[in-house]
């Protein structure tokens, strides 16, 4: 019901933003987890850790701004994949 696409331009834009942000959020979390694994395994230099951290921090901030701009909450950026459970 709430995810149905209608022809109302405003709702269409909202629906598209919802979909795009969901995918970006998934990728962001996957990359973040990957980076944490690498840091914990000790294969990165201090400088690399700092650069990664800066990047992820900026990404997380930008994501927060976009969520506010489109009126979305964290739980909106998830997707039910039926028998596979939730996307995140």
């Amino acid at each position, binding site marked *: 019901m709430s995810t149905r696409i209608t022809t109302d331009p405003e709702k269409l834009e909202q629906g598209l933003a919802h979909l795009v942000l969901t995918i970006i959020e998934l990728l962001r979390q996957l990359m973040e987890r990957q980076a*944490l694994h690498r*840091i*914990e395994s000790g294969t990165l230099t201090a400088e690399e850790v700092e650069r990664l951290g800066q990047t*992820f921090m900026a990404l997380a901030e930008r994501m927060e701004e976009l969520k506010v701009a489109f009126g979305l909450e964290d739980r909106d950026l998830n997707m*039910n994949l039926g028998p596979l*459970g939730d996307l995140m």
Partner: protein
Amino acid sequence: MLLLYAIEAALEDDLHNGHPQPRGLADEPLSTLTSGNLAALVSDVDTAPEATPQNFVAYERVIERLMGHATVLPARFGTTAETENEIKAMLVSRHDDFIDALRRVHGAVEFAVRVPAPADPTEDEPGSGTEYMQHLIDQSRQINELAAELERATEGLMIETRRTAKSVACLVTKYNADAFLEKTRATGLTVTGPWPPYSFVNQ
């Protein structure tokens, strides 16, 4: 327009008999829409309710009253539909998901256990990239420790748990709810609930 509060097994509808039915938002009476073995609890509204604290509390209260005597799947705040048929069509199209979820949360409630807040709140605001990554590592370690501590403290009282960044949601049968609260509080954990099983319903 109809506002959806919860979904339940149609047979459970009988369980509300003899209990005063809560009233919905704007003091409208609740009605039950049935399709096959599922039922939706709705009330009439003029427009979708605004996301205000008062409305959240009122909505939450209705769901809590309903879960007092039946197993319900709580709807997300503000789920609306134009017509009864729209709701019934959803009961049909998502029938299997709802039945699975009802089975999972049958007779159960949710408790939320939070990671203790840092003694120094500024610790939560990472300045450098390295601090940010360290913060993420600490956060995931804390949540894992909390989940392990919960597991030890409650000795099999939990049916299932789900982790978020700062809390663990625990699914517990109503029968075990008091014992769960007692054991978690005895260990000094911050627990809230019982809540409707929001975290265990994929809507």
